[in-house]
């Protein structure tokens, strides 16, 4: 019996479209990636609003305070058990703002309060900020469509 020896062929797929698509996907994810996650505490359920709009101009300096239902705070990734203990962190932020020539009155304090938090706690937090000459506040809400 005779056998035919088959000629070896190198099969090569054209990878160009796949590489194109992959690079486009990487570019897409790189653009939309959010590096400010450290400022947000995911466990905080914000109240919703249909009227509030995202700020058009970003403030020169901002401080984001996450206020939990139990009165604890999450600030810059750190947990602070009580509002009264945040003084030293606020002082540090005011000094940091002064180094970039932003006056305490122009520092934007963004309060991300849980929707079930007693409003008195929000007001106490504002009063604590006022002790450090911070007077511009933004109450953050989730945009409802």
């Amino acid at each position, binding site marked *: 019996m005779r056998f035919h020896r088959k000629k070896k062929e190198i099969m090569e797929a054209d990878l160009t479209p796949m590489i194109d698509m992959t690079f486009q996907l990487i570019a897409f994810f790189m653009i939309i990636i*959010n590096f400010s996650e450290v400022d947000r505490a995911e466990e905080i359920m914000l109240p919703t609003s249909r009227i509030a709009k995202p700020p058009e101009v970003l403030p020169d300096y901002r401080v984001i305070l996450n206020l939990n239902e139990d009165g604890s705070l999450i600030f810059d990734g750190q947990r602070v058990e009580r509002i009264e203990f945040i003084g030293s962190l606020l002082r540090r932020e005011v000094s940091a703002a002064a180094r970039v020539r932003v006056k305490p009155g122009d520092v934007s304090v963004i309060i991300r309060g849980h929707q079930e938090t007693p409003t*008195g706690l929000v*007001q106490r937090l504002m009063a604590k900020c006022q002790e450090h*000459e911070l007077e511009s506040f*933004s109450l953050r809400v*989730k945009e409802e469509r």
Partner: protein
Amino acid sequence: MKFRKGIQKAQDIRLNMTAMIDIVFQLLVFFIMTFKITAMEADFNVRMPLASEQVARPDEVLPTVIRVNLRAGGDRHIAGVDVDNEIQSMTFDQSDMFQRLTEFVERTLAREGDASTAPEVEVEFTIAEALRYKYTVMAMEAVSGKVLPDGTTKRLIEKIKFRSPN
């Protein structure tokens, strides 16, 4: 001059893409794993200036202040809204209290007339400490504006203050 005879054989240069594709896929997996869909967030601005000893000038036109008091009831839910615009005071304690608050603000603004000639109108909130924060935001929304039937937003009052809790 002598030329080389014959045609040079075209060389097939091939790049090894394996390493690049490995890295690219690792990057892609990293971005996909860290991708999180987050809802858009917006702000209500509240300015709480520090108390100063500065005395108002005699010619200075003071803004009209609408005072809004939010009362808390059982289980820290809202019990009612008291409003006062220096001329009339009202109390709303029905389920449509926030809608009535918006109407009250609209009436006050209509009375004050054109914003360019009339003194500014601002809202000062006094809020029960125990009240759930979501009701405070609902009240702020009610004085800030309203959504019209065509989907557009009518802006009402921008200046909102909180009365210090004492």
